[in-house]
């Protein structure tokens, strides 16, 4: 078991949990036009909801998940679950996103494979999985689908929208696309446009999948052979970018796995190798290779400055107050990219606060540094909660 998982189990033991939760589904039968111009005839949206919606429906916190995330952000599906939802440390009674006060909603984004329509879903026209016939999607499309969900739930105002990494991209897109709806925005460990380095790592991940013979141009859903090797390799590459040099040294250093001396062979020897293999092999059990291609593509396409002419133009009409958070050792979404968001918002005279949290965890810090984020988020909320009263 990796430190990462043992950390999560500690959370289960020590922190208050919201308990047993359930994923809900909504079927959308009206066609959706995507940024690409293509349409999806009907889609399904998976979401989870924690805490009580107030009568005015103004206490909603919308959580946007990252690449491999899902609607299951907190709590447990069954008492036997080994792990809680992916952001359980942030969501629950008295946590950053306090379910005693707020109604927390998280939905699986479009293109994913955890309940919401994506390339592994059945195309109603052919009754077969979409595969590569699924249209290319963008971050804006993901946000528009979340908007449809909130419409269906009768929610017109969001107290706060938040998320890390690609989740943070969705936060920015929300504040820009639906400025009247969003009161507070907390983009974490994110960027307003994916860097060349980010695109590069995504492309290597995609190539790993597409070079797997089992990928078969995306047609593998009927086959026993899935592009597991490619997807696993993509995940291993991804995990290198989520860590930092410092944390790798602390977690693994040059320690060997299950042996005391070098074996002079090509078996897994070092702990860091074992960790990456473990991450790869657990990932293929829960994730679809085509979804990985589509989501990383959506990340690559994300560029607010290009879309709106400049980042200042992009933010010109936002009304939300922002708290931008980055992490000192995150080199995938470095602080400089968060600072660029802050600079443009400040230029537009928007309310924007910024904090760089000192952490060893690299990009993964947004999934781990609960207490450090809580101090900031609680005090950020405090001012605006008072305003509500």
């Amino acid at each position, binding site marked *: 078991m990796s430190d990462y998982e043992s950390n999560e189990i500690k959370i289960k033991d020590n922190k208050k949990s919201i308990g047993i939760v359930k994923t809900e589904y909504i079927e959308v039968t009206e066609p959706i036009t995507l940024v690409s111009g293509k349409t999806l005839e009907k889609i399904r949206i998976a979401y989870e909801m924690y805490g009580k919606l107030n009568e005015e429906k103004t206490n909603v916190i919308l959580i946007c998940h990252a690449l491999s995330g899902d609607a299951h952000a907190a709590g447990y599906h069954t008492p036997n679950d080994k792990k809680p939802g992916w952001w359980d440390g942030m969501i629950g009674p008295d946590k950053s996103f306090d379910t005693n006060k707020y109604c927390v909603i998280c939905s699986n984004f479009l293109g994913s494979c955890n309940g919401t329509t994506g390339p592994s879903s059945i195309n109603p026209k052919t009754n077969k999985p979409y595969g590569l016939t699924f249209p290319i999607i963008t971050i804006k499309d993901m946000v528009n689908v979340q908007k449809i969900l909130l419409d269906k739930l009768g929610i017109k105002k969001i107290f706060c929208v938040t998320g890390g990494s690609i989740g943070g991209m969705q936060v920015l897109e929300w504040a820009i696309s639906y400025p009247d709806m969003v009161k507070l925005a907390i983009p974490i460990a994110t960027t307003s446009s994916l860097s060349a380095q980010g695109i590069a790592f995504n492309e290597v991940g995609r190539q790993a999948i597409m070079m797997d013979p089992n990928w078969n141009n995306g047609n593998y859903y009927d086959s026993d052979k899935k592009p597991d090797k490619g997807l696993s390799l993509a995940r291993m590459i991804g995990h290198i970018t989520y860590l930092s040099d410092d944390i790798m040294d602390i977690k693994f250093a040059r320690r060997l796995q299950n042996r005391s001396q070098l074996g002079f062979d090509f078996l897994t020897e070092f702990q860091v190798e074992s960790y990456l293999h473990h991450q790869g092999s657990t990932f293929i059990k829960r994730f679809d290779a085509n979804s990985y291609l589509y989501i990383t593509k959506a990340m690559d396409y994300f560029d607010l400055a290009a879309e709106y002419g400049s980042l200042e133009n992009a933010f010109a009409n936002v009304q939300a*107050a922002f*708290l931008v958070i980055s992490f000192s050792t995150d080199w995938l979404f470095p602080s400089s990219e968060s*600072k660029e968001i*802050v*600079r443009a918002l*400040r*230029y537009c*005279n928007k*309310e*924007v*606060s*910024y*904090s*760089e949290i000192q952490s060893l965890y690299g990009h993964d810090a947004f999934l781990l540094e609960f207490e450090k984020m809580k*101090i*900031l988020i609680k*005090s*950020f909320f*405090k*001012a*605006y909660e*008072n*305003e509500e009263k």
Partner: protein
Amino acid sequence: MKKNENEIFRLDYDVILNLVEFNSKVLDLGCGDGELLYRLKKEKNCLVRGVEISTTGVVESLEKGLSVYQGDINEGLKDYPDKSFDYVILSYTLQELLKPELVLNETLRVGKKVIVSFPNFGNWKIRLYLLLKGRMPKSKILPFEWYNTPNIHLITIKDFRIYCMEKNIKVLKEIPINLDKRFNQFLVNRFRNLFAQFVIYLIYK
């Protein structure tokens, strides 16, 4: 904020509040708990921004609903366009800076006007302390030991006047303060470098 510094800050803030015009855009460098910005926002309807290095300060400012940027002002203000603020404030911060000249240049570039306040090291008590005791002066407003003081660039009113003259910085106002209300205010005003305990400047370039 130390308890014995409260009075100084309150006075400093009162004077600064009077210097700033209504509806201005204000940047406070080293904004601490955000108290001054909060008052500028409430009492003068200003659009306010703070920069603060400590997490405690950032958290306290956030609680007041302020826009605060966690960062080190010694790194400069490169993300801030020229003359993008009506006022940039360095309240009781100049003497704590690692690179005071760089920061002053940056504030004068970014702010149409700059408000600077600092303890006056030319005060007669400080002069006497060093002369008679032969030790680094300590006082109500400089309560630290040499080895733990945050005040690493102490200056006198005369020093600052000469600096402004040499660098072609225009001084609009120079407000000398002595916290002792029984002290002859005429003397404080007449012999500022001798009797002021701290000073507030309104400058521009």
